[in-house]
């Protein structure tokens, strides 16, 4: 498959006056054209930082990003800010987690959709407005003509997320990064938004990075999955492989934590313990304090990400 995005040895450090904390270490992955890659992890696993690094939206004063992020052959990290602005919203677009706060409260939705169109294309306001209206319709907003002139506070969370998606799709990006697009929505709206995204994926030929902590969305939506933990990839596999035969104890724990209708239990299963703080990583394998298979070796040595003959990668000594 032709590669659209290739991230190699990405390291992100958060720097403040007193110390430096590594939040992403040696992250490498690639994404093919029109492929959907899921990134799964608990809070603090570095999945959002990864996406913001690709967009170069991390505050440059406090975040140091190293490595290469090659997009369509150019390394985004070497671009000037001005060149990056031409990429953002145009070739790579992003949908954020919080539809309630991600839209400007004092601009009409229509104007906010027109903005990227006017920014990246040489078109008149009239043309941009027409296109924005079509985008609203495409994103399943009923009565789009009137909604166009409404402000975000006049809309529900689901509607606002549809507007966010319309903004992201405005310039037909080659890559769409969706950072937990349904987390803040209730379940029925979640399903609608996912349907919409699937639909759009069929119509527009684009690659998607879907960041989520919901394995249900992954199984439903993605081709391949990265399991992230403490800023590292723990397992990378196709969706089929991962759900049929999870290799890493962490992945197994995550899958077991899913409640099933067929299984009668009083308590939900959980992975014991908490994600360690970025400043206080345990020695050896980062997961060993929570791992039921942990041995002496896991406490001392860091396992490398091993590639298996069937193409999947795992970071565990047991494999």
């Amino acid at each position, binding site marked *: 498959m032709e590669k659209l995005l290739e991230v190699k040895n990405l390291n992100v450090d958060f720097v403040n006056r007193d110390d430096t904390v590594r939040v992403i270490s040696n992250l490498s992955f690639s994404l093919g054209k029109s492929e959907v890659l899921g990134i799964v992890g608990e809070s603090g696993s570095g999945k959002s930082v990864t996406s913001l690094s690709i*967009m170069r*939206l991390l505050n440059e004063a406090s975040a140091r990003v190293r490595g290469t992020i090659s997009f369509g052959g150019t390394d985004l990290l070497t671009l000037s*800010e*001005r060149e990056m*602005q*031409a*990429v*953002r*919203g*145009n070739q790579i*677009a*992003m949908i*954020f987690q*919080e539809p309630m*706060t*991600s*839209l*400007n*409260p*004092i*601009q009409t939705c229509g104007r906010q959709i027109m*903005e*990227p169109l006017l*920014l*990246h294309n040489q078109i008149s306001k009239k043309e941009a407005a027409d296109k924005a209206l079509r985008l609203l319709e495409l994103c399943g907003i009923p009565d789009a003509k009137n909604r166009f002139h409404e*402000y975000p*506070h006049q809309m529900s969370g689901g509607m606002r997320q549809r507007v*966010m998606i319309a*903004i992201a799709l405005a310039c037909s990006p080659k890559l769409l990064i969706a950072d937990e697009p349904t987390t803040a929505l209730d379940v029925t709206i979640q399903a609608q938004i996912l349907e919409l995204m699937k639909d759009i994926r069929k119509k527009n030929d684009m690659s998607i990075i879907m960041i989520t902590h919901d394995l249900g969305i992954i199984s439903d939506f993605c081709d391949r999955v990265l399991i992230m933990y403490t800023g590292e990839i723990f397992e990378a596999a196709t969706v089929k492989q991962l759900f049929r035969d999870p290799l890493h104890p962490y992945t197994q724990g995550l899958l077991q934590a899913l409640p099933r209708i067929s299984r009668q239990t009083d308590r939900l299963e959980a992975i014991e313990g908490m994600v360690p703080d970025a400043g206080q990583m345990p020695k050896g394998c980062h997961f060993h304090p929570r791992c039921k298979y942990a041995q002496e070796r896991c406490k001392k040595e860091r396992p490398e990400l091993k590639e298996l003959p069937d193409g999947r990668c795992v970071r565990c000594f047991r494999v």
Partner: protein
Amino acid sequence: MLRYILRRLSLMVVLLFGVSIMVFAISHMVPSNPAAANLSQTALNDPEIVAAYEAKWGLDKPLYEQYFIYMENLLKGDMGTSIRTGRPVMDDLKQYFPATLELSIFAMIFAIVLGILSGVLSAVFQNKPIDQVLRTVSVSGVSLPSFWFALVVMSFFCGTLKWFPSGGRIDPRLFNPTGGTGLYVIDAIAWGEWGMLKDSLAHIVLPALVLGFFTMGLITRQTRSNLLETMSMDYIRTARAKGMKESRVVWGHALNNALIPVITVAGMGFCNLLGGMVFVEKIFSWPGIGQYAYLSATTLDFPAICGVSLLIAVTYVVVNLLIDILYGVIDPRIRYQ
């Protein structure tokens, strides 16, 4: 919207009624003797003259009766006659108010333009040298006493540098503007009198600067802190993710959101400015309401004191109404039904 404005304006009548009672009560509660303040020593020794004086100005009647007479005349559009100047208070106000209005408009323009500009610079270059300098200036604006600042500015720019004339609205040897709006700058532009424009601008710069300095400091601080807060909002990240230039993110998305609380502060600053007016007009010999109020108060000129108080109350209400309307213009979430 129109109904909202009308309701607010009708509430103003009630407010003015209250203000008139307050002013009347307070100014008469102070142990004072208007006759002593206005008559000469020899006249004071003659009880007949004193009695005639008090009868002339209605000072011999009970307070409530004085109030009713005043209110009755006020409803007919007559604010009484000033004891000190001997002219109708209405005429005095008409003469002095344009000067004050002009000065406060210039002070507010100065405060808003410079305040917002330096607030934005301060926020964008947070903790850089330029921010430190601007923060020092804004803290000075808020904390320097205006009478002291006025004297320093005057002695430096008028005394040492001789850049500006030291007082008055215009050079009376060169110009004697009559008619028009009474706002000399606007009149000069309307009449195409460029010499007069230059002269009136030269006169207004320093008092406007001194008068607006406090409000400018308030606005700078408020703009800076609000803008910093707004810049960390999710929708700013969205704007950046669209590929917008940082300057456009600040001016197009962040600033207007940050300005909503600034409007409140600007309004408060304007009211504060009316209070500072007395000092500034006195020091810069600006023939406005501030000086008029000061002289009326020292001579216990009751009709004039009431007139000035009512005028300032109306100004407060109108300014607050304008601010509320402005809220609705900027923020659709608080548009009035």
